[in-house]
Each structure stands twice: as structure tokens, then as C-alpha cells.
């Protein structure tokens, strides 16, 4: 029994100790720790769930964004594709152009090659020519040398000839001197002869003059009329101191009246104007008269000066012709009446005309216009220009007056 009691004693001791231990150690904490682990697990689970959800959220967001982004990317890719396609076409085109250029350049190169070939040919020809020319040059040199040699020999000959010539010249000079001397002597003798002849002539002339004086004195006592119809006016210079008495020539100048006649101071020309409205020129030098030409007008007066014929006409106009070619040069119109007289005014090319319309007009032949009109008051019959400067004009009028005009001044002194 005691053993069991002892047994139970230590056993109970152990049991109580164990129970005490368990109570202290585990029971206190059991619930706490289990709750804690539960809470902990919950927390971790929730934490992980939270993490997952946020990850999902992010993923969804990125998906949405990436959707947009994928669309954008698609657009970008499409754009890039377009750009690439364009580039490709561009490059193809450029390739075509480049190959075209290559072909062109090839043809150019071929042409240039041909040109080079032709140039080579010409070059060869030219070198051949050069060779031949050089041969010619050498030949020419040779001939030149020969010529020079000839030239030298000729020069020597020439020198010799010149010496001979100079000696001959000396001789000639001497001869000429002799000749001159002889001629002088001859002239002297001739002069003497001439003086003797002059003396004889003078004597003869003196005798004649005396005779004439006597005749004139006789003639003055005895007057004679002249025929008005056919008069050959002697326009000769005053030193021909004979009045023409002999009729040299008579011819029918015009078909009708001959209203004007004038000598030309230059040639042996006679100008006549007639009622047949013609102006004829006659060459009297050969002793015959020839009609040189006929000119249309109703001449009232004629004037000849130099190579020009001035005809005043009844058709109120004045005409100027050249004698040489008988061409009408000027027609001066402006008068309202018959032009009775026309004269060359002192300095050419002025012309003054007097007309039935009681005016005098001064014309400039260069401009063919009337420079001045002078009112005379009466029909002008005839004009005279007095001095060579042409400053004074004298006009005779129907009203029995003669008027003197100063062409430089606009006044009219009348008589």
C-alpha cells in the first residue's frame, strides 16, 4: 500500500506539476495565439488580395491605355508604312532617272570618242602636212638663198649701171644748159619782132579810130528807126561800141506772138516766150537756132540767170526751170492776178514778182514761199532790180508812177 501511496504521491506530484505547467504555459496563450494567427493570416490574405487587386487594376488601366496606345501605334505604324511606300516610289523614280542619265552619258561618251577619233585622224593628217610643209620650207629656204645670191649679183650690176647713169646725167645737164641758153637767145629775138609788130598795130588802130570818129559825127546828123517786130537785141557788153545794124538771123520762134525774149549770159542761148504758151530755148552759137525745149507757160516776161530761167506767166504763177535739163524747178503761186514781171533778186535764191493784182511779192526759192508782199496800189508793169545786193527794187506801174522799194525795210518811197 505504501508503495502505491508513494506511487501515487510522486505520480500526483508529477501530474499536478504538469497540469500547473500546462496551465501556465499553454492555456494562457493558446487562445490568444490562435486568435493572433487567425488575425495575422487574415491580414496577410487581405494584404495579398489587395496587392493582387491593385495589380489587376494597374493591368486594366494599362490595357485601356495600351488599347489607346495600340491604336495610336497602329496609326503611327500606318503612317510609317505610307511614308515608306512613298520613299520607295521616290527611290524607284530616282533609280529610273539615274539609269536614264547613265544611258545619256554613255551616248555622250561614245560621241566624244568618235570626235576624238576624228581629231586623231586630223592630227595625223596635220602632222603629215607639217612634214610636207617642212620639206617645202627647206626647199624655199634653198630657193631663197639662191635668190639672195642672184640679188647680190644684180645689185652689183645695178651699182655699175648707176655709175654709168650718173656720168650720162652729167652729160645731159650740160646739154640742157646749152639748150636753155640757145632758147633765151631765140626769145630775145622773137620779142624784138613782137614789139615791132605791136607798134605797127597801134598805128593801124589809131588810124581806124580816127576814121570812125568821122563817120559817127556824120551818122549823128542822120537818124534811123528800127523794126520792132524782129529785133535782135544786142545784149553785148558796152565795150562793143557798135549798135547792131545788120540782121544776123530771123526765124519763127513761136506760133503766135512772141512776148518775151532774153539772152542767156552763160551760153549762147536765147530764150523766148510766146502766146502759144511755150517757152523755147534757142542755141544761136552755131549760127542756126535750134529749139532746145519748150516749156509750158503763158509767159509775160522771162529772166535768165545762171542756169535758171524764170518765167512770169499770165496764169498768176511764176515758174523756174533749169536750162540744162529743162525741168520745172519751182512754181510760185500766190498772186491773184497776172504776173507781169519776175526778176531774180540780188542774192539768190530770192525772186521778186510784180503782178496785175497791184502787189509785189518776194519769194524764197529754197522754201518756195512768199517771204514778203508789198502793196503797190496799182498794177505793176515791170520790175527792175538795181543793185546786186538786191536791196532796192524799182517798179513801174500802170498809174504812171515808178516806185522804189527797199527790200530791207517795209516802206515805200514813191515817186
Amino acid at each position, binding site marked *: 500500500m505504501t508503495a502505491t501511496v508513494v506511487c501515487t504521491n510522486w*505520480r500526483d506530484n508529477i501530474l499536478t*506539476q*504538469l497540469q500547473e505547467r500546462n496551465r501556465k*504555459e*499553454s492555456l494562457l*496563450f493558446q487562445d490568444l495565439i490562435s486568435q493572433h494567427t487567425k488575425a*495575422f493570416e487574415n491580414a496577410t490574405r487581405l494584404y495579398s488580395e489587395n496587392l493582387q487587386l491593385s495589380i489587376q487594376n494597374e493591368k486594366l488601366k494599362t490595357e485601356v491605355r495600351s488599347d489607346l496606345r495600340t491604336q495610336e501605334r497602329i496609326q503611327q505604324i500606318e503612317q510609317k508604312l505610307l511614308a515608306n511606300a512613298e520613299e520607295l516610289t521616290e527611290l524607284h523614280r530616282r533609280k529610273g532617272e539615274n539609269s536614264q542619265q547613265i544611258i545619256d552619258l554613255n551616248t555622250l561618251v561614245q560621241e566624244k570618242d568618235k570626235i576624238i577619233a576624228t581629231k586623231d585622224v586630223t592630227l595625223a593628217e596635220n602632222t603629215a602636212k607639217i612634214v610636207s610643209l617642212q620639206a617645202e620650207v627647206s626647199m624655199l629656204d634653198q630657193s631663197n638663198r639662191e635668190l639672195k645670191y642672184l640679188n647680190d649679183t644684180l645689185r652689183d650690176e645695178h651699182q655699175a649701171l648707176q655709175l654709168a647713169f650718173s656720168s650720162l646725167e652729167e652729160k645731159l645737164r650740160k646739154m640742157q644748159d646749152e639748150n636753155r641758153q640757145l632758147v633765151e637767145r631765140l626769145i630775145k629775138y622773137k620779142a624784138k619782132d613782137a614789139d615791132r609788130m605791136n607798134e605797127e598795130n597801134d598805128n593801124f588802130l589809131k588810124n581806124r579810130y580816127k576814121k570812125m570818129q568821122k563817120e559817127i559825127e556824120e551818122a549823128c546828123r542822120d537818124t534811123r528807126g528800127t523794126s520792132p517786130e524782129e529785133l535782135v537785141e544786142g545784149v553785148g557788153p558796152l565795150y562793143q561800141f557798135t549798135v547792131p545794124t545788120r540782121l544776123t538771123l530771123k526765124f519763127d520762134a513761136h506760133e503766135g506772138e512772141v512776148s518775151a525774149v532774153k539772152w542767156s549770159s552763160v551760153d549762147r542761148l536765147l530764150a523766148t516766150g510766146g502766146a502759144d504758151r511755150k517757152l523755147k530755148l534757142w542755141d544761136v552759137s552755131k549760127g542756126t537756132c535750134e529749139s532746145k525745149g519748150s516749156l509750158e507757160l503763158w509767159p509775160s516776161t522771162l529772166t535768165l540767170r545762171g542756169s535758171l530761167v524764170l518765167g512770169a506767166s499770165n496764169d498768176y504763177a511764176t515758174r523756174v526751170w533749169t536750162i540744162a535739163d529743162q525741168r520745172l524747178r519751182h512754181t510760185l503761186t500766190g498772186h491773184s492776178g497776172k504776173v507781169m514781171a519776175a526778176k531774180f533778186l540780188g542774192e539768190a535764191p530770192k525772186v521778186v514778182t510784180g503782178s496785175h493784182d497791184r502787189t509785189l511779192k518776194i519769194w524764197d526759192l529754197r522754201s518756195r514761199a512768199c517771204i514778203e508782199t508789198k502793196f503797190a496800189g496799182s498794177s505793176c508793169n515791170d520790175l527792175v532790180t538795181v543793185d546786186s545786193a538786191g536791196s532796192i527794187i524799182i517798179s513801174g506801174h500802170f498809174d504812171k508812177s515808178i516806185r522804189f522799194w527797199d527790200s530791207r525795210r517795209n516802206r515805200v518811197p514813191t515817186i
Partner: protein
Amino acid sequence: MANDREILREIWEGKLPVSFRLDSDEVADFREPDPFYLMVPRLSYFPLVTDKVKKHFLKYVTNDKQDQEMWLEYNGQPLKWHYPIGVLYDLMFSTEDLLPWSLTVHFDKFPESEVYKFSNKEMIEAYFMACLKEADVLKHRGQIVSSMQKKDHNQLWMGLQNDKFDQFWSVNRKLMDCPAEFDHFKYIPFRCYVDDGYRQKLIKPVAEDGRKKTLRDLLNEMFPGRNSVRVKTHGMFPPLETPLQWLSEHLSYPDNFLHLCVI
């Protein structure tokens, strides 16, 4: 015969509250890891119960340490994982400290000189079975263990792992059984933890004169000359009169050893 089911039950139910904290030097994350609280059975081994702890703390550790072994440390001393948890607690827990038992979890600088490295559970199982066989050799000259089938070994291990009293003890009873001609074991399998190690000795449960030896006798034999030797096991001080046979049958750890911490 381990008949005192009440005692066995009380022994089996022994659990300790433990808080695991990750060493602050090894925290790589910007968040402070929460301490992990767990009720661990006294009879189990640390590697069997620390799966969740490892998983929890692995998140906070830098990547290069992920593959390293986890080791536990208390008061600067690394814990030897091949001691049962209860033994470690009785040995190391200082009386000034308060429950729950706060251990520090390390991943870096595994102290290879002090602690064995373990890679997987098979190693622990092998160690457990080795202890078991050693105990059986001491008790029955190894006959019972060797006559057990593989599935019995597995059942023992699974029962311990999954904390299944009936599953474990249905097989363990055989080991606690005495052969017909004896009513005691040949020798008592025990370990006395003293001076940072443990000692074992061949001690019969029955004296020469047939008397059942008590704990006192064991201590006298283990530590001759020392009078006041207190022995702690399973968190309590068993009376010295307790017979060794009964002690061995009921107060053994699952590896069939008595683990006595000498204070």
C-alpha cells in the same frame, strides 16, 4: 506498460507560446516584419513547426539570402535544432524572462560550428529514427525496432509531425512494452544536459537487489558527490522518488529518451 494515459496525455498536450522575430539587421524590406506567434508542441522539433515562420519572414529578406538556412537564436545562443523544443526551453529560458518565448530568426551567417545544417525534413526524420533505434537498443537490444515494419516507422513519424496522439502511441506502445521475461527495460535511455552538452550512461532500472531504482539513484550514479542536483524535464521538477522505469515509460520524449536538464 505505459498505462497512465492521463500523464501521457498531459505530456503530449504540452505547448509553448513562441514569438519569432526577424533579426533587424537582415530586414531588407521597408516594412517592419510583424513578429510571428505560434504555439509549438514541446515534444516536437523546431524544423517541423517553422515552415510558416520561414515563409512569412522570407518576404522581408533580400533575394540573395532566400536560399539560405534559417536558424534560430535566443539570447545570443543559436538553437540546436536536434533537441526537442521542450528541452531547449527548459535549458535556455531564463526565469526573469516572460512568456511568450521570443526567438530571433536569422538567415544569414549560419553558425556552422555550433549547429548542424539541415536541408530537409528527411534529415530530421533520419535523426529521429536514429535516436529511436538507439533508445530501443538500450531498452530491448534493438529487437522491437528491427521487427517493426517500415509503415510503423512512418506512422510514428507522421504521428509526431501531425501531432496525433493516438496515431503515435499506437505504435509507440510496442516500444514501451517490455518483453515477456522482463518487466523492465535493459537500460534506461536518457540524456543529462549539463555544461552545454549531454551525458549518457548505462543505468539499469532495477538495482541488483531487485529494487526499482529511482531518479535519486540515477542522479547519484551520474553525479557522484553532488547532493543537491535538481533536474528539470518537461518544464517541471519530478520528485526524486519517481521510479526510473515508470519515468522512462511515461516521461520520455517521442524519441524514447528521457531528456533531463540539470539545473
